[in-house]
């Protein structure tokens, strides 16, 4: 295939590699809509990846692993939700602490599972129409990714058209007004942070159970952190989180794709492209003069 292999490999990498970005950014989007930031999703992602892999190995059931990963994420979310709503406690600082704590927990309990091989999530082959083996392998898609793609419009609808969506937006935009409406801001934030962490845990399960498909300590490499930037880029819109996740998945695939055609002298620098892309996007979209359009009003305050 020669040079045509590069765009194909990037497309395949996008379909394979954007699911963790998608789940984490949807989780972060839900959290931030309620007015709190969760920077600790990196730790949640790692804990999710570890627990999914461990459960899948111990029970031979990858889907049970996915569920447990989500629940493990929820546990971390509960700590975050409780701590970041204490008076005078900064939610960004709690996030940093949760990165250290979450990755500590993941590495501690994950040590025995680095060697063994756990059953992986199945893939749906959508490329049967093509005779090219590259296209066939590129179009093998994990059902978990499709679930994520389905959650994005659902969440968009949820925010725009349901009573609970309105509550969350009210709490995130104007907590005082929400209180006057009789909404418990702390309960809404609790639910949003815990549910967001559930999604991030599932993103971790995708990492260890589908792509790259093993449990190592370097498996997430900052994807949980990029989610925060990704949500800013997506203007706090779940549907745009989907597009942004695809873009980032694609950027991540550039390095390996170029390596496959023999360009590997800048391999590490190309691997840094998602981070550079995130930074560039933030430089281009942020402004010191105004708050970003779409940003929840109470975000980053108190």
């Amino acid at each position, binding site marked *: 295939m020669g040079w045509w292999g590069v765009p194909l490999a990037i497309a395949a990498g996008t379909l394979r590699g954007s699911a963790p970005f998608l789940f984490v950014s949807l989780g972060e989007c839900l959290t931030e809509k309620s007015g709190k930031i969760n920077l600790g999703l990196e730790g949640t992602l790692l804990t999710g990846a570890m627990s999914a892999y461990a459960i899948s190995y111990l029970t031979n059931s990858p889907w049970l692993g996915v569920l447990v990963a989500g629940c493990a994420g929820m546990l971390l979310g509960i700590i975050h939700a409780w701590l970041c709503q204490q008076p*005078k406690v900064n939610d*960004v600082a709690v996030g940093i602490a949760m990165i250290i704590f979450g990755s500590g927990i993941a*590495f*501690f309990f994950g040590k025995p599972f680095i060697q063994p091989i756990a059953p992986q999530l199945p893939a749906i082959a959508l490329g049967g129409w093509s005779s090219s083996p590259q296209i066939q392998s590129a179009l093998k898609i994990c059902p978990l990714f499709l679930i994520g793609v389905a959650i994005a419009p659902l969440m968009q609808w949820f925010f725009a058209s349901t009573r609970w969506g309105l509550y969350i937006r009210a709490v995130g935009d104007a907590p005082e007004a929400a209180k006057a409406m009789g909404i418990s801001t702390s309960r809404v934030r609790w639910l949003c942070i815990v549910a967001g962490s559930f999604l991030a845990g599932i993103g971790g399960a995708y990492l260890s159970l589908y792509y790259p498909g093993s449990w190592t300590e370097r498996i997430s490499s900052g994807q949980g952190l990029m989610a925060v930037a990704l949500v800013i880029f997506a203007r706090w819109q779940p549907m745009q989180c989907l597009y942004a996740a695809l873009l980032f998945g694609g950027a991540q695939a550039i390095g390996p794709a170029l390596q496959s055609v023999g360009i590997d002298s800048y391999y590490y620098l190309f691997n*840094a492209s998602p981070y550079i892309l995130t930074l560039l996007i933030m*430089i281009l979209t*942020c402004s*010191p003069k105004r708050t970003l359009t779409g940003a929840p009003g109470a975000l980053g305050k108190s």
Partner: protein
Amino acid sequence: MPNTYTWRGKLEAVCIPLAAILFSLLLFGVFCAAVGANPIAVYGAIYQAAFGRWQSFQNALIRAAPLMLSSLCTALPARLGLVIIGNEGAIVVGGLGAVAIALALSTNVPPLGSQVAMAVAGIVCGGVWIGIVGALRHYRGVNETISSLLMNYIAIALLNHLVGGPMRDPSSLNKPSSYPIPDVNMLGDLPGTRIHFGLIYGLIACAIAYFLIQRTTFGMAARIAGGNVRAAKLAGLPVGKLTLAICFLAGSCAGLAGMVEVAAVHGRANESLNANYGYSSILVAFIARNNPLAAILVAILLGGILTSGGILQRRLELPDATILVFQGIVFLVVLFSESLYGKLGVFQEKFDGNDRIGLVGSTASDRSGNVAG
């Protein structure tokens, strides 16, 4: 910020972090017991590995040096109200800069000249690295926490690229490294010890930082801007220049930590440079509540705890991540303890017959606490 001008306030500022550390030791003990290790044995092993003998205490001090330096990378900008966590990246870039200049100069200059050049290179590289974060914050409004984190990953990619390609020593097979710094140019040890001169750098940097923040008009301006940016601007303070200067200083301290690591410990640049000092030093800054002098003590304490990872693994068969879990617990408990300032009656000044003054004072300090935090 709580009131630190009365003796009760000072007592509070000492007691609450101490209590937080003790409580997190307790929680860590519960965690150890839950995974089947004897907590008393774990405490004993940590104490022995860190502070038990002079030999082991030297190890703690060796680790404390980079922690002190790079904790300033978080502590200084915190006075401006910025949460910067790019310590790891600044360490890596500073170390790379130092190695580059040392290799360029080789043995053509006297050792002292080479060491000064390495230190300057580390300071400038680290300073510019975090300076970029400050500039993005000031001119483009980019969130400094996220951008500094992203810069960490970019710095590590740069390190991997340089030691895997342009700077690679072909004899380093399984762990790609740069060419080594000539032995004569390495930083020496303090007489009679195994502790390298980096410790002195750390002590001096922390002392200067304390003096700068607490005793100069520059530091005063920075603290005002950290309390309320709009008020600082109305008062005519150059907030932009302050941001850039503080960020440069912060980064240069972490860059110097990187220089110390390559010039005194590793002797070359490789992946040992990003050995998690970055994240531990954020913890140091938070426990020390961004006070550079307190950071010295906390860095020694945490340096000791970091050295105990190996012993826990060998003697008690606990994974090396145990120390990471412990750090996470300490961090969470210390953050929780923030909410206790001003709440405990013991530490509050009593105002005879006029409680209103105390009340007004506490709400005002609450607000400034929120802005700074």
